[in-house]
């Protein structure tokens, strides 16, 4: 049978990186192909080339045996490709129908045939069993349904080949089951599917074949039925993944952070956090697991003091002193550090120099400023010591931060926040968008912080990260902590169930005791 997609010798370089190095890939019609690899392995670049968002330096693309050149997504769409992006490309102010027909509206000399459009969408949805309300405003729909709209959008464009970029990142495990069901149906309908992910259990569940990428190259082509997760992860990282990091045994009852009966009503007066109770003790890493958008952001913002909520009820205490009405500065001086999720828009000032980014939290120190004046020499010494200690790759601490790579930027944030040796460190997605070497470095730093009798509150949507680092794991679902599990008894499966809102029997009382 003819291949639906055939990529031959694709190369693509960016300044300093060979993102795709002589990649060849062939996928048959009706096949579900998983494309796996760590962050920065070059998966997204490859798919962007296939979808016409980027042009390769060399190499060819063949669709159904025909050689194609894609200069824009439009060219790719015309050849029967559709892409469901990780961050949905939807118009939240427009209706479902408007979103789906956008750009190829059924029309009569410029006027949209609204009735026809609506009927077409309803029929399409029926054909593929993708239920949606055609008139709903997309912004009001849950993410799972929004993803359906994205898929319908591609199908409406007669897509024969569907590319999914990290499709499950935003879904609850329950929604995932439905999603996989849908993928199988699509494949049965002769659609070809490429599925980008780095979650191996999903790969095993859904794919027919697997392509593994590492550092811009394809390192393995496997049949799912004939392989196992160990083999895949070896090809992904070049060796077996060590899940068990070394950790010092610490048993302390000294509470660092205590949150009692926390209830938060956000700026639209929605009850976003409900009766949150937990503690973090000295020498403990507490991980908060959960699908993105279940209240983790609001919880962290309430603790850190960045909340824009209307009402915050309950007690937040840091080493016995109540934080509720403190400014961010007071909270920080009481012993709180924070690695924010969004490093570019919160954690850093990209146009400022590396040094200026490093001194932010220490701006009142006597080595940095005296009587309102900056001390140049002090700033230089301080920044250079941090640079060396945290292995930040930069020629010059007076370089503009924007010139640094993502991993190095994250190291700047980590260096600045860890350097305070605060009693409590809050780390939010500390390794997102960071290469493997940097991930290991950051993980070691977090454990190091713990071993110095400090507390760490870790928020991550990467379950493996949470499980390998945390002493205790709290699971958040719809604004509540619905379950807890200790490091040694943490099972990915049961936590996964809790992330979907399924409370294990007998666990409820456990939570309240905390």
């Amino acid at each position, binding site marked *: 049978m003819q291949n639906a997609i055939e990529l031959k010798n694709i190369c693509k370089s960016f300044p300093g990186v060979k993102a795709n190095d002589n990649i060849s890939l062939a996928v048959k019609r009706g096949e579900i192909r998983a494309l796996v690899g760590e962050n920065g392995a070059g998966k997204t670049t490859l798919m962007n080339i296939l979808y016409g968002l980027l042009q390769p330096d060399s190499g060819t693309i063949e669709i159904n045996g025909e050689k194609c050149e894609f200069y824009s997504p439009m060219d790719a769409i015309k050849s029967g490709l559709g892409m469901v992006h990780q961050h949905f490309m939807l118009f939240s102010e427009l209706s479902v129908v408007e979103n789906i027909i956008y750009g190829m509206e059924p029309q009569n000399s410029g006027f949209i045939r609204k009735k026809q459009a609506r009927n077409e969408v309803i029929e399409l949805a029926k054909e593929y069993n993708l239920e949606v309300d055609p008139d709903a405003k997309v912004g009001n729909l849950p993410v799972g349904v929004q993803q359906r709209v994205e898929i319908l959008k591609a199908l409406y464009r007669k897509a024969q080949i569907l590319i999914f970029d990290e499709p499950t990142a935003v879904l609850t495990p329950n929604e995932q089951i439905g999603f996989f069901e849908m993928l199988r149906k699509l494949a049965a309908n002769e659609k070809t599917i490429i599925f980008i992910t780095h979650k191996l259990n999903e790969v095993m569940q859904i794919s027919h074949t697997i392509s593994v990428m590492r550092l811009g190259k394809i390192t393995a082509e496997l049949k799912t039925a004939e392989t196992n997760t160990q083999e895949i992860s070896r090809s992904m990282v070049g060796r077996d993944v060590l899940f068990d990091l070394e950790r010092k045994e610490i048993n302390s009852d000294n509470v660092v952070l205590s949150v009692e009966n926390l209830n938060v009503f956000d700026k639209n007066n929605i009850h976003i956090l409900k009766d949150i109770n937990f503690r973090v003790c000295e020498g403990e890493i507490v991980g908060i697991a959960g699908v993105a958008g279940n209240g983790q952001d609001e919880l962290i913002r309430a603790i850190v003091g960045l909340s824009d909520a209307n009402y915050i009820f309950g007690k937040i205490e840091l080493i016995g002193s109540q934080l509720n009405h403190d400014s961010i500065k007071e909270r920080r001086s009481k012993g709180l550090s924070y690695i924010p999720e969004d490093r570019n828009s919160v954690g*850093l*000032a990209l146009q400022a120099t590396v040094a200026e980014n490093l001194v*932010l*939290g220490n701006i009142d120190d006597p080595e940095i400023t005296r009587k309102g004046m900056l001390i140049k020499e002090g700033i230089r010494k301080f920044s250079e010591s941090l640079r060396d200690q945290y292995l930040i790759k930069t020629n010059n601490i007076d370089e503009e931060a924007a010139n640094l790579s993502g991993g190095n930027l994250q190291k700047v944030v980590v260096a600045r926040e860890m350097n305070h040796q605060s009693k409590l460190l809050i780390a939010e997605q500390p390794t997102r968008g960071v290469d493997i070497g940097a991930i290991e470095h950051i993980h070691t730093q977090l454990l190091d912080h713990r071993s110095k009798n400090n507390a760490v509150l870790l928020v991550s949507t990467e379950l493996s990260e949470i499980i390998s680092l945390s002493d205790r794991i709290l699971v958040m679902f719809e604004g509540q902590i619905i379950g807890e599990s200790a490091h040694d008894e943490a099972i990915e499966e049961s936590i996964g169930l809790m992330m979907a809102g399924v409370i294990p029997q007998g666990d409820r009382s456990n939570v309240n005791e905390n």
Partner: protein
Amino acid sequence: MKIRKSFRNLTSSFKAPVIAVIGGLLIGGIIMLISGFEPFSSYRALFDGAFGGKNSANLVGTLVRSAPIIGLALAASISFKAGFFNIGGEGQMVLGAITAAIIAIYAPFSAPITAVLAVLGAITVSGCYALIGAWLDIRFSIPLFISTLLLNYPANYFATYLANHPFRDLTTGEVQTQRIPAALQIPKIIPKTQFHAGILIIPILVFLAAYIFKYTKIGYKLRMCGYNKNFLTYGGVNTVKLEYGTLFISGALAGLIGVLEVFGMRYRYLPGMLTTPLYAWTAVTAAILANSNPIGVLFSGFLLAAIQNGGYGMERTSEVPREISRVIQAVIIMIVCAATGLKRKNVSSRKEG
């Protein structure tokens, strides 16, 4: 190596403004040509009007004109640099001027006390007026550039009303306040010109601001705020306070410029004395041209004053309407915008890769 790099930085930061000025003059020339004027002799007249004259009288005139422009551009730059787009300098200046004039005319104290009171009163009123914009931004998220711009209108109307009704000088036929006492008038330091001692304060303020931005903690905070306000909030700095503070200082400085114009130039407030010459708008141009750099404002403000002052000279000798200088000014901003826009586009396309 280090010297070469800093030289490259210097030339690259001057490149866009220089191209913009040349482009502005070029397009101005084309407009003159189309309108039937001879651009070369007109520009010679403009140059002469800006820098020439007997005993360089025109140069002194340009300097005098540049003083309020540089002062207001500095006021604008301070807020721009911190990321707050205060373009209400005109209204803030007008309120400062009328406040100072009224205190100077009516306060029953000795001259030194009155002078201090007038300056304090003016900067308080102007600073507080600028705070309204900050409040609307913080409380209701109304964009600062819209609120400060619209607030220019009521300030002007109110000042005109005051000069027209309660505080009008009824002995003259004009709509204006009385003259301020002679003891409060700032003396001229170059005879037979308008160059008064108050102008000397402007470069001092410029260097002070440059020093503060570069070497102090508050300067660091302001610069970081301009780069990324969230970053500063996250770092524990109270950015709400910072916004109020910045707007107050920016407004107060604009008010001080208004005081200088009243005490050093006209010795009274008359409607239009600050608005008709478009000081505030020229100042915004100067600030943009200098990329909000205080020292840069010294050059850009002087340059724009020269073009404007030259425009008057040109009008006298070659009959080209002086508005051409404002057209040139507008074209200069457009080219600066285009250049920075292109640069940003290039940077973001590089980042995407």
